[in-house]
């Protein structure tokens, strides 16, 4: 097991390095000038040159990359050109806000997805299957931002039950896990949960339906096991795949949704990325992409480690 974990950790290193190259270079491919984030649009050439020098943007790109990686390894992702604040602090603040959303949305999405998928798998062709399949198709097809706006119109504006935007009455820095603050989480997390719900419903349905066709299930039935006991076997066999899909979905959610966080003015990673992209704030953009990619890498690593614990056959491979 230890060798397996070490192997996975070793695989993660080149992935992480590739992530740094891609996240650094990608932003240079986009047209525009990063100094637009700080200089007025009509800033004369000498002001622009002085700024380039002040922010190290006058150095060759490979040198900038080397310096950036060196600082990143030491925990310094640089300073946001736009705000002048440390990128790491900016990103970690946004990650913690997105994390709250992602956890609640994942819980809703995974729970709903597993229940609907299992019911549909057991009732193939029945009305439950049709309803669950329809819901899952809607979940993966409906545009996030549209759903967010519709929910806002219904629950915030028409009914006045929930806030339309923001991360609490005092902002995210004064977040408390009480009813007043949870109201702010409701609409964005419901909006975000529909995609994982749809994907997991479809995955679980297909897996359960497939498992029920397997010979070992027939054997279990022949031995006289009850439906609940058979379900436990089916669940155990579907769990590794569901876990892998869930890991990916949580990874996506941790990346934040630019559209959903913008619609709800939720100060998470999506909102941060949106700001950084439109302001050409290269250090902030690079830092955010790097941290998000690393979260994705770590989540996949965790899934890789947990999967063989649930299904020892995977570890042997």
């Amino acid at each position: 097991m230890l060798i397996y974990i070490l192997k996975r950790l070793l695989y993660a290193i080149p992935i992480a390095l590739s992530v740094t190259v891609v996240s650094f270079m990608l932003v240079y491919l986009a047209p525009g000038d990063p100094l637009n984030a700080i200089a007025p649009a009509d800033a004369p050439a000498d002001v622009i040159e002085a700024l380039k020098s002040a922010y190290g943007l006058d150095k060759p790109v490979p040198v900038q990359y080397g310096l950036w990686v060196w600082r990143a390894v030491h925990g310094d992702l640089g300073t946001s050109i736009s705000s002048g604040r440390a990128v790491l602090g900016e990103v970690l603040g946004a990650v913690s806000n997105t994390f709250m959303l992602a956890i609640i949305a994942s819980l809703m999405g995974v729970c709903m997805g597993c229940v609907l998928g299992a019911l549909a798998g057991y009732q193939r062709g029945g009305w439950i299957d049709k309803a669950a399949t329809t819901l899952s198709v809607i979940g993966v097809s409906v545009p996030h931002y549209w759903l967010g706006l519709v929910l806002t119109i219904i629950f915030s504006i028409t009914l006045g039950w929930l806030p339309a935007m923001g991360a609490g009455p005092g902002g995210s820095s004064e977040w408390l896990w009480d009813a007043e603050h949870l109201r702010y989480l409701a609409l964005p997390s419901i909006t975000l949960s529909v995609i994982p719900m749809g994907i997991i419903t479809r995955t679980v349905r297909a897996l359960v339906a497939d498992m029920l066709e397997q010979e070992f299930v027939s054997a279990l039935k022949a031995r006289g096991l009850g439906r609940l006991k058979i379900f436990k076997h089916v669940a155990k066999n579907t769990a590794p795949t569901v876990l892998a899909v869930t890991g990916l979905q949580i990874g996506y959610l941790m990346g934040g949704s630019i559209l959903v966080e913008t619609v709800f003015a939720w100060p998470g990673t999506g909102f941060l990325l949106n700001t950084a992209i439109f302001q050409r704030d290269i250090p902030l953009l690079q830092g955010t992409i790097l941290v998000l990619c690393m979260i994705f890498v770590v989540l996949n690593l965790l899934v890789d480690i947990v999967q063989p614990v649930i299904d020892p056959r995977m570890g042997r491979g």
Partner: protein
Amino acid sequence: MSVLKKMPSWMIALPLSFCLHSALQAETIAKYGISMADIPLTTGQPDRGSGAYQFTGHTIYDPLIAWESNVATRPGKLIPGLATSWRVDAADHKKWIFTLRKGVKFHDGSEFKASSVIWNLDKVLSDKSPQFDAKQSAQVRPRIPSIASYRAIDEYTVEITTKNIDALFPYQLPWFLISSPAQWESLGKDWTKVATQPSGTGPFKLDKLVPRERADLVKNANYWDKTRIPKTDRIVLIPIPDAMTRANALLNGQVDIIEAPPPDVLPQLKNAGFKLVTNVTPHVWPYHFSTYPGSPWTDIRVRKAANLAIDRNAIVKLLNGLAVPAKGQLDTSSPWFGKPSFKIGYDLPAAKALMAQAGYSPSKPLKAKIIIAQGGTGQMLSLPMNEFIQQSLAEIGIQLEFEVVELENLYLHWRSGAKADMNAGKDITGINLGYVTSDPFYALTRFVDSRYIAPNGVNWGGYSNPKLDTTLDTLRNNFDIKVQDGLLAEVHQTMVDDALMLWVVHDVNPHALSPKVQEFIQAQHWFQDLTTIRMK
């Protein structure tokens, strides 16, 4: 009632007085949904353009010369700020003498003196000074280009020398704001720390800053200008970049005021009892033409025809009324509008006739490429408006092609000028960029002075008119404001008569207010005075 009569009077008076006292003491709060993605810089010189000065500029800080921003019915004017008076040196017209206001204190309690002004000028102009801040410098240096040197004459008098004689120099100073040297010292000479605990002399103090989420400005009861003590105790600025989200937050009661409501939501807002406030605003949405040889816009008949081919009222309708038709670079109410002989309006037959004289028609069209942004600040409804113009110009035989880029990229094309390879190399001969037109430099001189031909400035199209250059020289050497106004009107007249641009509409800087807002004065400027906000 009989029970009340039997009660001792103190039992009624005490709770009543307590309630009254609480009501009198209750903090009044205005929540303001702003269209920016983050709170602008709070250290002294706000970033995010001229629209940001109303939020973290002229609230926390003061300039030496201020802009009158608390009147809605007429254009504002320069008024004393931290300088009570200013004059040009009779012997040397490059020297300006400023007499400073006495008894003004920064929010940290330190005193404002001539040394504070010099320290702040060094902060943005001298990269050798310890307090130099590249970010603040980048914001304000382009706005105070005339300053050559400066010195303190005594504790309350400052002398600023300009590079050349520049009678319009005072117009540059509302952009230059004074922050506290003592606060910077006490916070370890760290501008990042100053951002969360800034100290100016302005009518508001910053109480709380949560990046990208909110900034709380609280009333400075000891503000030196007693006529501008804020009418609301606390103004909470909440960045909500998405227009629909801003409108939802207003409808839901989470904010009391929003900037730039989306045009589609206006009927709903009005029906729900919200108030829409607009005013003349120094902004224009134009096509700025290249006049370099080879450009299709070198022919004045074509430029004039384009100006006559647009039904601007239809565009205003498209924007649900959130614009006014342009008749030039400036609104007709501006003292610098003048009396142009070329009357801009919708006259299709005249436009077609001009095109025919130039040798073009819908069957034999003139082709031109314009670079436009997909959207962004000042660009209004960029794509629909550009498509409207494309169709309108097609009717008179001008076939437009668009190069669509992001706004940040458009700025790069703008700064580089029409002659630069990134424009001329792609046959781009026009640029669509919303212009701020708040003062003589921003409205007029930067676009017509041949010395500002890009990349030396933003005379994008390379317009050169020796007669206008002479007028501008006369203007810079004349210190009589009435004469200045006359000369500026002359400049504007020439711009319009030369049809330097295709002027389409002026923005009206719309705000939507909840019924809880009792007073909100919207000045005819991008600078607004938030001290005028009064809540019920």
